[in-house]
């Protein structure tokens, strides 16, 4: 009996391990291109771990969420964008301060009226399938983005493009229907896909990427890992300097940091903030801190009761102690959010108010007709830090009688839940604890997708279903402004109005904390949270 029970306990442990492995196994089976997938999931895991820096060939990067798509025109989450950018490049790109730099275009000219953009393309660039990159390819890509049937995330960024012309193979001319302040930033967001691959793969292009980038797809096991290998024909001589890059989705903070410590991962992002001080400088690990454009907030569905009342939304903002939030959830690494965008974003304008005030929050709730609070659901992803943030918000709102049910979901499920609603009426979302960073680096990127009434899911990320006619108008006006001072003034109005309307609970601005083995150089997390691996190099 005793022996049996002992073995039973050991067995239980085994089962737990087996179940975790089985979780990976499922996604293994789903993967389309499992040609190189190993027969057993655990063997698969160790195989990709074996591709660590030690052999000087490949590097492994552990990230906290799943990569959702590799379609550069449809990616909306930062990790998908990072992954797509290893294989795709746009006419322009960003440097580490979010400034625009030429990539596939060598130069550009803008006409005085701000309507005609002429790009000169780089010579001798080939797609990974061997076809030439030329002006016709750019035309085909823009046509794909603009096609309403495809319903791609980037479509609205290119809505003002009236026509694209290719006078010769090396020149592309965009003509806009009206001036668009942020157009160059949007151009930098559009990775160029091989037109041949587009015709051949159709909708499957998200799983079979073919770009001009430094890396090409080797294997993508959705929900587990993405392996990209060196593109030997890359146009920048001498790049990339590593044979392959493996992105592994490791939602759990503890596992991610353990992977960095053991060398199973060469780079992790995010590094759990509470451990930043503990691992710094130890075991050959360096901790890298960068100020970010990442804002954290809770969207409050302004079309659903009780959040349709501005008093309730303001009450929630007063009821949350932002300083405590930074301290508890962010381990002090961050600042409170005092506008709709971070101070690192273009045209930021500081707002005041919503200091922690329980009495005021209770008063506002009573005025709104909820003296005893109410119950609601808060959604978020299932990584440790997000759950911690949601629990913190739950604890804070409990003090004013708002009872929150914390629902953490896997990223894909969550995204499906949000985008399943085709109209605001169908939306089930009440509160969503999430973060946003304008990957296009401009004020428009930090505003339009989140607050324009054209951007209700699934078209955009206005999950607060915020609709304010003046804000809509201002967003349009700001885009047309050719003068920077004027744009800045308009954005100041926008930020002030949204701040007072409180479609969000404004939480904090992240400091980007990533961890790297000291043998690795050149992997950088940009202020928007995207990971750049072009310069990666193993010492």
């Amino acid at each position, binding site marked *: *009996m*005793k022996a049996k*029970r002992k073995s*039973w*306990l050991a*067995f*239980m442990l085994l*089962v*737990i391990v*087996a*179940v975790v492995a089985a979780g990976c196994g499922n996604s293994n089976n789903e993967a389309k291109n499992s040609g190189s997938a190993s027969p057993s999931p655990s063997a698969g895991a160790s195989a990709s771990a074996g591709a660590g820096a030690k052999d000087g060939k490949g590097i492994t990067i552990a990230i906290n969420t799943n990569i959702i798509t590799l379609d550069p025109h449809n990616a909306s989450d930062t990790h998908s964008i990072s992954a797509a950018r290893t294989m795709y490049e746009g006419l322009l790109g960003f440097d580490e301060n979010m400034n625009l730099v030429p990539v596939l275009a060598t130069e550009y000219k803008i006409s005085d009226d701000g309507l005609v953009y002429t790009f000169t393309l780089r010579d001798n660039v080939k797609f990974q399938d061997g076809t030439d990159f030329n002006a016709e390819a750019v035309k085909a890509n823009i046509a794909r983005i603009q096609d309403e049937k495809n319903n791609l995330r980037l479509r609205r960024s290119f809505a003002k493009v009236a026509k694209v012309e290719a006078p010769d193979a090396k020149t592309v001319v965009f003509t806009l229907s009206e001036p668009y302040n942020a157009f160059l930033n949007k151009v930098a967001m559009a990775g160029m896909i091989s037109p041949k691959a587009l015709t051949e793969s159709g909708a499957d292009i998200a799983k079979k990427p073919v770009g001009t980038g430094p890396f090409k797809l080797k294997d993508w096991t959705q929900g587990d890992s993405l392996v990209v290998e060196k593109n030997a024909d890359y146009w920048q001589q001498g790049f990339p300097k590593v044979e392959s890059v493996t992105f592994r989705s490791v939602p*759990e*903070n*503890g596992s991610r*940091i353990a992977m960095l410590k053991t060398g199973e991962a060469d780079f992790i992002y995010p590094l*759990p903030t*509470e*451990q930043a001080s*503990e691992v710094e400088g130890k075991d050959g690990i360096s901790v890298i801190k960068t100020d970010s454009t990442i804002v954290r907030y809770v969207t409050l569905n302004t079309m659903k009761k009780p959040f349709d009342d501005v008093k309730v939304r303001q009450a929630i903002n007063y009821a949350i*102690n932002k300083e*405590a939030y930074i*301290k*508890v959830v962010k381990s002090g690494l961050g600042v409170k959010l005092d506008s709709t965008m971070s101070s690192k974003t273009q045209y930021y304008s500081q707002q005041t108010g919503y200091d922690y005030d329980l009495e005021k929050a209770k008063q506002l709730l009573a005025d709104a007709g909820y003296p005893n609070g109410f119950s609601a659901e808060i959604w978020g992803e*299932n990584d*440790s830090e997000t*759950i*911690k943030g949601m*629990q*913190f918000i*739950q*604890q804070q709102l*409990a003090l004013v009688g708002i009872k929150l049910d*914390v629902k*953490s979901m896997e990223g894909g499920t969550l995204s499906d839940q949000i985008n399943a609603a085709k109209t605001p009426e169908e939306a089930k979302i009440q509160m969503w604890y999430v973060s946003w960073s304008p990957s296009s680096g401009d004020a428009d990127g930090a505003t339009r997708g989140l607050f324009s009434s054209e951007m209700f899911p699934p078209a955009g990320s206005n999950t607060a279903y915020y609709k304010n006619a003046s804000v809509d108008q201002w967003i349009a006006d700001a885009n047309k402004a050719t003068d920077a001072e004027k744009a800045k003034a308009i954005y100041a109005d926008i930020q002030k109005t949204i701040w007072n309307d409180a479609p969000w609970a404004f939480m904090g601005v992240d400091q980007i904390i990533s961890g790297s083995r000291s043998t690795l150089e050149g992997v950088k997390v940009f202020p928007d949270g995207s990971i750049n691996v072009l310069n990666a190099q193993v010492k």
Partner: protein
Amino acid sequence: MPDNSIGMGAGSGSSLPLEAAPARTAGRFKAFYRKFRKQRLAFAAACFIILLLLVAILGPFLTPYNPDTPNYDALMQGPSAHHWAGTDEYGRDIMSRLIDGTRLSLAVSLSAVFIAAVLGTILGLLSGYYGGWLDRLIMRGSDVLFSFPDLLLAIGIVAILGPGLSNVVIAVAVFGTPSFARIIRSVTLSVKETLFVEATRSMGAKDSRIIWRHIFPETVSSIIVNVSMRIGGAILAAASLSFLGMGAKTTEPDWGAMLSMGRDYLSIAPHIVYFPGLTIFLAVLAFNIFGDGLRDALDPKIKN
């Protein structure tokens, strides 16, 4: 208590047939207690279990702090005079949460094992007594359930029913049922053949009377032993499910959920997982030792 001593005397002397039944029970209990008391470890385990039960019942009066109230000025503090088991990542008192969680853990495991015992006993009695196709049906059904590893079966059930403590109870009960069915069936098979059952049947007693009045009492000791042995496993299974995020919500002070939420801080504040882990360990150990002791004390074949 003179009355008592007379009763006992009468029982052991068995001179008064009419009083034989209650006196026999009392005598049995006394003999059992004597045997059980000799097993020091099992006796200590029993005392610990009683303590756990008291903590579970009196929980709200014992907690030094409100288990759900955060204190952002005392994050992840180690054990001290103020917080015996330290504070967690929100500055909540871990001791208070463990005390509060005792009720949850015991309620889940006890109710799961109780449900399993009731279902398993009924199935075992029917299967053993009637035999034939009913026996084959129940036993093959049990075999199917036995063929799944316990926890895997529970995870499967929770996956179907959805997460939550009440579904954990159902899941743990389902994987506990076949073991009861099998044990009770074997006891039933042997008791069924005894002379007194045959005598009862020859007097024309109905099946239901034979099963409940004559066979069932003979299975009670096996049920008790198996119940006590399975509670430890049930606590562990419930904690495992919560740890995997399939049981208690992460906000509830469930032992497994506390372990799960605390594991991010293993390297910087190990006490956050150490104390819930220790509590689970002690509780499971106590129930297992107690079960062993009960078995030894109730088994007439073991003499001492």
